[in-house]
């Protein structure tokens, strides 16, 4: 990346000088991409967004936009649109006045404001709503007004702080598609904050995963899912079985690791794991088959079988591991609870991961 849109350079934020909301953050945001900051609450993702918006000041490090440091710029001169979780539509103004606000504070001519407000309303499919009050709109409509207001002055960068958090599931999925469409149409850079990994995976070009103020991994959704950098990412993105193990030998991209119960597992490895190092084995539920065969074998007893329609989940407890979740296609005969089963999985589908970055 020769010319990132935004670059965080070793940014740090501490409120009390003892604990850190964000630590050692190096992150480049590419021009035109949809980047999601993903993490549990308190992980530093919102603080990162607020530092970019200018409402929080980093205690160390530099944020650059288009190559220039923006640390000294107050929020109103950063030229970026923000969609807040609460939408923050001004209740004493109509929808039209809300959308016109960023243009009128920029002293644009009246005719231009009218035309652009009209266009913005059309973009979010709310033609004819200009004279309504925000309180008269549904949650989804308010959301779209907030979006139109954040984009009408054509900022190059739009920040969204859990904008879909207040919507119900169906509307949320609809708005996810709308947001993707808008992003593709307008071609701006979007930085999106959410704690919902499903939302992050479906919408983003890239996802930055945060935990405890540390950036854990930045990658495409597929790469995060297939090749999580550490145990935290592996657990946070999608369903996963995590098994503690100790490395016995390492070579050729694979390692041999021994579970606490003594079973040896052959797993893919992407970091230089030394023999004796504690690792976490990541094993996706959908990669486990019933019955013997090639590759790794685990034995256990079925605790429960949960029917999901398109698939069945088996909860299996083995002597080597805690509970392991197995995802079976719905048509496969399900062993009854209490029966002994053998679980098989390929070495390629099992990934030995280092401990999370602290």
């Amino acid at each position, binding site marked *: 990346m020769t010319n990132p849109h935004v670059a965080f350079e070793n940014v740090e934020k501490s409120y009390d000088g003892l604990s850190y909301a964000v630590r050692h953050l190096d992150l480049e945001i590419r021009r035109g991409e949809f980047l999601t900051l993903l993490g549990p609450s308190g992980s530093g993702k919102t603080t990162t967004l607020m530092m970019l*918006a*200018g*409402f929080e000041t980093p205690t160390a490090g530099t944020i650059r936009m288009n190559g220039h440091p923006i640390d000294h710029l*107050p*929020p*109103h*001169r*950063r*030229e*970026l*649109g*923000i969609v*807040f*979780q*609460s939408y*923050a539509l*001004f*209740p*004493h103004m109509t929808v039209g006045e809300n959308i016109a*606000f*960023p243009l009128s*504070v*920029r002293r644009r001519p009246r005719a231009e404001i009218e035309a652009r407000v009209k266009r913005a309303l059309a973009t979010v499919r709310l033609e004819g709503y200009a004279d309504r009050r925000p309180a008269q709109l549904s949650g989804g409509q308010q959301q779209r007004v907030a979006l139109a*207001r*954040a984009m009408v*002055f054509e900022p190059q960068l739009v*920040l969204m702080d859990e904008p879909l958090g207040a919507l119900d599931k169906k509307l949320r999925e609809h708005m996810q598609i709308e947001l993707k469409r808008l992003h593709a149409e307008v071609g701006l850079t979007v930085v999106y904050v959410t704690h919902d990994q499903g939302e992050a995976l479906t919408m983003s070009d890239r996802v930055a995963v945060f935990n405890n103020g540390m950036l854990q991994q930045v990658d495409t959704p597929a790469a995060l899912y297939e090749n999580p950098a550490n145990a935290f990412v592996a657990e946070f993105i999608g369903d996963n079985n995590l098994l503690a193990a100790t490395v016995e030998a390492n070579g050729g991209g694979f390692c041999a690791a021994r579970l606490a119960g003594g079973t040896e597992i052959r797993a893919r490895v992407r970091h230089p794991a030394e023999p004796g190092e504690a690792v976490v084995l990541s094993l996706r539920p959908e990669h486990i088959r019933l019955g013997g065969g090639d590759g790794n074998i685990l034995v256990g007893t079925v605790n429960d079988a949960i029917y999901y329609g398109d698939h069945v989940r088996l909860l299996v407890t083995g002597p080597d591991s805690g509970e392991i979740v197995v995802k079976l296609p719905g048509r496969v005969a399900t062993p009854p609870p209490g029966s002994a089963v053998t679980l098989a999985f390929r070495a390629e589908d099992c990934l030995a991961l280092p401990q999370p970055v602290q």
Partner: protein
Amino acid sequence: MFLVALFLYPLAEMLWKSVADREVREALPQTAAALARGATVDDALCATLAQELVRSRADGTLAAAARRLNYDVGGMRPLLIGSARRLAADPARDCAALAAVDPRWNEEEVWAAIRRAAGPLTEFYLLSAVDLHRNAAGEIVPVPENEAIYREVLWRTFTTSAVVTIACLALGFPVAYLIAGLPASRAGPLLALVLLPFWTPILVRTAAWVVLLQNEGLINSALVALGILERPVQLVYNRIGVYVAMTHVLLPFMILPLYSVMRSIPPAYMRAALSLGARPAEAFLRVYLPQAMPGVAAGSLLTFILAIGYYITPALIGGAGDQMIAYFIAFNVTDTGNWGLAAALGAVLLAATLVLYVLYARLVGTRGMRLG
């Protein structure tokens, strides 16, 4: 029941007192009735009046009637009391005899005063409260310049209250804004400080200002010591003292409604306005202030209404020319015993308050006005 007994009944009683007129009816029933019917002054009426004067003097109702008539036309009290005493010895049978007792019985003004006071209802007190009266011909005219005081008092009451309200708003708005922006753990103690003056009796607070503001007081001494003033400035027993003390006393009533409204404004609004490119001052004016308006309206209304009824502070700190309407209500009740005029002044005050309230409700909307 409580509401009726403790609130509505006294209010109704006050309003009734401001229009009731029964002293003359009780003392001179037949004369009053005849004059009220529009009878002309003839010998029969003069004789009736003479009898009734004597009788009412005997049964003790004359004094109240004489005082009542004296409010309207100066000199009526000595006229009635004196005539009654002399008529008791020597009854008069016609107008000539009555005039012989006191020549003023020939004046139409005197009879008109009795007719106006014939009751049972009168607008006399209400008219007096705004410096109007009916002349002998029955027309409503302003009272002579040298007797007019209440219009000026009303005007003074309103202007003083307006100045105090504006001062409270100017001082209270930043305080409320500051406290509303703090986390709850730090807002609590500060709010307690705002309420602290309520723990001190108002008399003590007012007296404290006298101590601070007097010529040898803390403020004047400090200013002189610092060389800002050459000699002490009169700060107390004038309008400045009234402004300062009333603003201090009423400030919490401004801050609390402001705070309660401001606290309900999420900080996201200001952030949104800033992120959309508004300079901080513009964001404040266009986004924050309109949402704080219900608090400004409620606080100002509360402060103003409390201010126009203020008694003790101006009475202690103000000079003779700074007394507000409440002082004159008290004066009429305790010093002159003119309950009717006191009630009428109270009614004017009540009417002014109601008009203000309606005006505000129109401007802001009662739903938008939150007092707590």
